[in-house]
């Protein structure tokens, strides 16, 4: 496996980037973000014309049969534009669950771009903990409440994992209530099932899906970081203070050099994480999540007052970065996971009470 981009990946990137430059400049995202964040027209074009919706779906179900590498490149571009479309939630996360459950018919719909799906778990769930308990099944009907679900507001079908089985619930069967979210460009919603009709699809190991998603999310974080770095570089070159471009001051240059190095390493980590192993995903999340946040925070700082304004799109990226830091596990969760994956055992647990201290009268 190479960590570079292949020609096919470069072509796909160019197609997506061109479309986004046209239809989704930061100003356009900003303009719609308070009323109707998701851009479903754009999503249709991306899904059908460029064919990203079915990237990860095998050809037998009408998909492109591509690998995680191509999906990762699309995510980089979507991150670079904080594009408000449900690619990650529907075509990556939920699709992975559908593939596990072997849900051919739904996959076909997703591949064609007709159907948008969402995995009903809190977006901040850790891939390393048991998920579930919030929803129960009785006689084929679901009951329960799940909050902070990403992509649910625009999903046609909700995919609910309950006790190792994936259930499909038509959106109309549930109540989906959008709640204010830190990330304006990826809304979250509270999903309530009250005796909702559900169709069991097959077995699913949600942890696997979440780990797969976490690995790919690193590419979106890379895109966010890249945009922030490039935008900041352009700004410090043109902004003059003290009769010099701000970017000619060494204190600023060194910070940007360090950010660049963080991003270079984030790119390598994101590429490596497309191999689908748990270890590479954990490494990429432990690194990239923090890098995206750090670069976005530095970008705000180095833009000075402009960086604090609503008018400048930078805040959309900071919000995306900070939210994805929590999505599918925090960097700390992923580092904890590495303890086992990389064989780094923790400290031996201290004795609950320490009689020898008591004896010495030191307690």
């Amino acid at each position, binding site marked *: 496996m190479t960590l570079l981009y292949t020609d096919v990946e470069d072509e796909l990137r160019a197609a997506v980037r061109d479309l986004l430059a046209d239809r989704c400049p930061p100003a356009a995202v900003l303009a719609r973000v308070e009323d109707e964040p998701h851009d479903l027209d754009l999503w249709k074009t991306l899904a059908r014309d460029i064919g990203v919706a079915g990237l990860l779906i095998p050809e037998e179900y009408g998909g492109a049969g591509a690998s995680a590498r191509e999906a990762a490149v699309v995510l980089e571009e979507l991150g670079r534009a904080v594009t408000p479309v449900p690619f990650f939630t529907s075509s990556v996360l939920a699709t992975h669950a559908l593939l596990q459950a072997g849900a051919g018919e739904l996959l076909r719909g997703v591949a064609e771009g007709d159907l948008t799906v969402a995995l009903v778990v809190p977006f901040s769930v850790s891939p390393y903990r048991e998920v579930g308990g919030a929803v129960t099944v009785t006689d084929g009907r679901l009951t329960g409440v799940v909050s902070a679900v990403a992509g649910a507001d625009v999903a046609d079908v909700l995919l609910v994992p309950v006790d190792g089985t994936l259930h499909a619930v038509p959106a109309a069967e549930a109540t989906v209530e959008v709640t204010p979210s830190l990330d304006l460009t990826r809304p979250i919603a509270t999903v309530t099932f009250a005796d909702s009709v559900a169709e069991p699809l097959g077995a699913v190991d949600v942890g696997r899906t979440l780990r797969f998603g976490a690995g790919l999310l690193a590419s979106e974080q890379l895109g966010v970081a890249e945009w922030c770095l490039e935008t900041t570089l352009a700004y410090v070159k043109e902004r003059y203070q003290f009769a010099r471009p701000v970017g000619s001051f*060494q204190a600023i240059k060194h910070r940007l*050099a360090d950010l660049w190095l963080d991003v270079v390493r984030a790119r*390598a980590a994101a*590429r*490596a994480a497309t191999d689908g192993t748990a270890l590479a995903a954990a490494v990429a999340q432990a690194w990239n999540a923090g890098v995206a946040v750090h670069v976005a925070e530095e970008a705000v700082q180095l833009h000075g007052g402009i960086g604090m304004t609503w008018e400048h799109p930078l805040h959309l990226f900071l919000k995306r970065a900070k939210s994805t830091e929590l999505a599918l596990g925090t960097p700390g969760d992923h580092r904890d996971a590495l303890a086992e994956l990389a064989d780094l055992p923790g400290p031996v647990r201290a004795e609950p009470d320490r009689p020898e201290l008591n004896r010495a009268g030191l307690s």
Partner: protein
Amino acid sequence: MDVVDRFLENAPSDRLEFLRARFDAGLAWVHFPVGLGGLGAPREMQQEVERALAHTPQLDTGVQAIGLGMAAPTILAFGTEEQKKRFLRPLWTGEEIWCQLFSEPGAGSDLATLATRAVRDGDEWVVDGQKVWTSGAHHARWAILVARTDPDLPKHRGLTYFICDMHAPGVDVRPLRQITGEAEFNEVFLTGVRLSDDLRLGEVGDGWRVAQTTLMNERVAIGGAPVRRGGGMIGLVADAWRERPELRTHDLYQRLLALWVEAEVTRLSGVRLREQLAAGQPGPEGSGMKLSFAKLNQALTGFEVEFNRDLGYDDWAFRRSDSVDFLGRGPGYRYLRAKGNSIEGGTSEILRNIIAERVLGLPSEPRVDKDVPWKDLPR
């Protein structure tokens, strides 16, 4: 691999003879031209060759580091055919060790201000000056040397690049004891050293450009070496951690996990850089590898000392070391030696400048020395 198999069929068993034969078979640097230790093959192939020859006699990359990492690529890029034929083979086999006569007491980061003079005398050059921090000069047969050949030009333009004969009369190498107690580097005094003109590398006055090739290769050589996942310094630290459960603390644990991640992403970006490099010479991006390696190595060695809770030190004896033996000595040595990683081969501050200006295109700071003849510069 056919070439390797064919070579191994008739390979001599004596170590030196084996290495010579390997060079002659083009398996030293496969991307070098045929006859010069290579096959004119893509660089990527080297890894396969190394794997296939893993159990055969190896180079001493410690003592040979400057020859392999800096002199060889510079000679390949700027040397005449005769120079390449003369120097590359014994350089690679380790029969001739190289050192680097760049830094001077008055010119470190600002290398282009250096004062060592080379004055032409017929077919020879006469060199006078003082170099410092010269690693391995005490066992070097040859040196790469930058000297000033025209003090009337601005600093970057009056330099010329030479190969210096370390056995020539007038070369005086004196040990310089360092922070670790030993003397790995030296002061080198050059007094009336005569070098024939065929030891010049590149054109007269073109020394800065030639030196750039050396420096960019140096930055990839320091910190760009391939390691396996969890190997190198993090491997050492992780092994100590696994072996001494009684020393583990929660505070150190969080740091260890974060360092493990940083080591891994740094390793991965090294792999990626080498894939990119497969096509040609390193660019300024290589500085990033050195910068991240230095920071990481320092964090890891500092961590190791703290973890061990050992107030001792293995050996302060003043001695001439053969090479930097990072792994062969104790944590205290490693901690101290790692401090050099952010100084040698360009300080981390200089590397950040390079990244900022040459990779990111940020404007340079106002320059006071640009068009001033070197002899008029404040020093």
